[in-house]
């Protein structure tokens, strides 16, 4: 668990990222605030297209510009604004202090290099090591991520490995420089359930060993419940609720969070599932006010007019919600 007394490792302030296409402007991330403390795992949850991955890619500064554009905001990493530094400085941070595990291990590895070469590349780029030393470190890191017979595997090509093995290689590559922050973008979505559990347990062990922070991006609420300390729920480019994992599951406050948790199949057989009616709005044509209001069961007049911002609930500074149902009560007291 991250202790809140320390300074945050990563602080995203009022970040907006949008994409300017010929026809319209897609505002993928709209004014979000998010903090990560050293050693904690924060889960970023939401449905496809809600801006989870754009948030991650913005942090890594991997958004193609143009068509992408950082409209406003800051991304403070150890107090330094990542959006202001030069590309050269960013390259020193990327893969070294902040690294990323992508969703698809099948397509994120280069098919024409051995996995040993690919991990070595990262080491040689960021650390002052000879090739032999780098190879040694590669072997060590492959052992750490529990790849069987690493001496042989190190000389193999990605196609010779299973999906789970490839994801282990991706993880090895991303932790080889001892990053302080690991961004895991749907690290197990492409994998089978029994392999999923292996990979997530591995990430958890690595976090406990090295005290790195993890930003875990997922749409799977089971993974959120089991592997995160705090949760931020995203909808249409905004964080709509943020709290500790226990709070999110025990007392979800935003109608969208409630809907998500209720719509999961539970153990009762043949009972009707609760649903959220309608579909996610197109990010270029968002409704006025709160983007969730057309699907919201608890909609009030204010929802159609003004966008609610993330604010703490009464007497609970760590539980924040962006919803007019709660803001009114906050402003009255």
């Amino acid at each position, binding site marked *: 668990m991250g202790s809140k007394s320390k300074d945050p490792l990563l602080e995203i302030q009022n970040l907006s990222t949008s994409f300017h296409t010929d026809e319209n402007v897609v505002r993928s991330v709209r004014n979000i605030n998010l903090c990560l403390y050293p050693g904690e795992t924060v889960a970023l949850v939401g*449905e*496809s297209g809600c801006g989870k991955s754009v948030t991650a890619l913005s942090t890594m500064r991997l958004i193609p510009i143009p068509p992408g554009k950082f409209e406003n905001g800051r991304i403070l990493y150890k107090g330094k604004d990542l959006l202001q530094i030069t590309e050269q400085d960013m390259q020193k941070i990327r893969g070294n202090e902040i690294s990323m595990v992508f969703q698809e291990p099948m397509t994120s590895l280069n098919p024409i290099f051995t996995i040993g070469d690919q991990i070595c590349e990262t080491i040689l780029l960021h650390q002052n090591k000879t090739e032999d030393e780098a190879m040694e470190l590669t072997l060590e890191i492959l052992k750490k991520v529990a790849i069987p017979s690493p001496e042989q595997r190190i000389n193999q090509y990605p196609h010779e490995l*299973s999906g*789970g*093995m490839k994801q282990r290689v991706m993880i090895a590559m991303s932790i080889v420089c001892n990053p302080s922050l690991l961004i895991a973008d749907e690290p197990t979505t492409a994998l*089978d*359930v*029994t*392999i*999923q*559990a*292996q990979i*997530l*347990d591995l990430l958890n062990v690595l976090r406990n060993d090295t005290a790195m922070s993890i930003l875990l991006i997922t*749409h*799977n*609420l*089971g*993974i*959120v*419940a*089991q*592997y995160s300390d705090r949760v931020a729920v995203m909808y249409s480019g905004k964080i709509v609720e943020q709290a500790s*994992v*226990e709070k*999110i*599951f025990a007392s979800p406050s935003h109608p969208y969070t409630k*809907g*998500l*948790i209720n*719509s*999961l*199949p*539970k*153990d*009762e*057989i*043949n*009972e*009707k*599932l*609760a*649903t*959220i*009616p309608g*579909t*996610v709005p197109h990010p270029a044509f968002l409704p006025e006010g709160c983007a969730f209001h057309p699907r919201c069961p608890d909609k009030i007049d204010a929802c159609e007019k003004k966008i609610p911002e993330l604010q703490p609930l009464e007497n609970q500074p760590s539980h924040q919600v962006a919803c007019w149902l709660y803001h009114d009560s906050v402003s009255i007291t």
Partner: protein
Amino acid sequence: MKTLLKVQSLKKYFPVYGGLLSRIKGFVKAVDDVSFEIKEGETLGLVGESGCGKTTVGRMTLRLLEPTSGKVFFEGTDIIGLKNKELEMIRPKMQIIFQDPYSSLNPRFTTERIIGEALSAHGLAKGNTLQKKIESLMEKVGLSKIYMNRFPHEFSGGQRQRIGIARALALNPKYIVCDEPVSALDVSIQAQIINLLQSLQKEDNLSLLFISHDLNVVKHLSQRTAVMYLGKIVEVVPTKLLNTKAAHPYTQALLNSKPSLNPTDRRRPKPLQGDVPSPLNPPLGCHFHPRCPEVMERCKTEIPRHIKLEDGHFVSCHLYND
């Protein structure tokens, strides 16, 4: 309840070619001796990891794939031996809903044509009646009829899956294979489609073979659950006993690896070690033995047979031999 579909020792071996003259090098035993039955109005869940043969089984029950050997009885007739003409008579009663609503709809067809194609192909309706029928199908799956002239790319994933369902329902089938119909959809949309399938099943007394890798979804929908591993069914269990009486170590491992939704309970059992072996070269004996936490000597050489534990509950595992 009457048995609608009965599958007997179904096998599908895909040849693997290799070498200079592209001779047959070996076989991938995608489905190896699978038997089960589905009653009228029943949902059988079929779970397993990718590559275990779930989809191959589903397609063979419709004869979209020719089995290497085995029998498929639909309402008492073995459809494997049928000629094309005879098969055509039975086909309307069996349908399929595909996993990916993005690639299973023809992008150049309007919704109207996609849903109505089967009806006109079988000569069941035309002109005004066809139009009316399509309208009522769209209404049944929760699509407004104003979307009739739109193309698939104009719809969201959930709406496309509704079109796929309407297409499957067009001929009033008795049996539908649902091949991972919700895995490509978001959670909130998943629940809508699951509810829709469930209410349609009740309305029309449909029998479903529900293929999925998501145990939660299968548990929610099906009366019985069959678990597959490397081409074989390792356990068939009434779904209400799944939590308490799952017998096969693989079924237990699947149940255990599903992350619990309770953040205060983080007693995570140790996940299953290793990977699924290649079906080209499966382990001898019980295919699961290299990963099994309870492996015994005989598992390494002897293929376990189906053992009946109680009514409707079968397992193939040496642990349960006397």
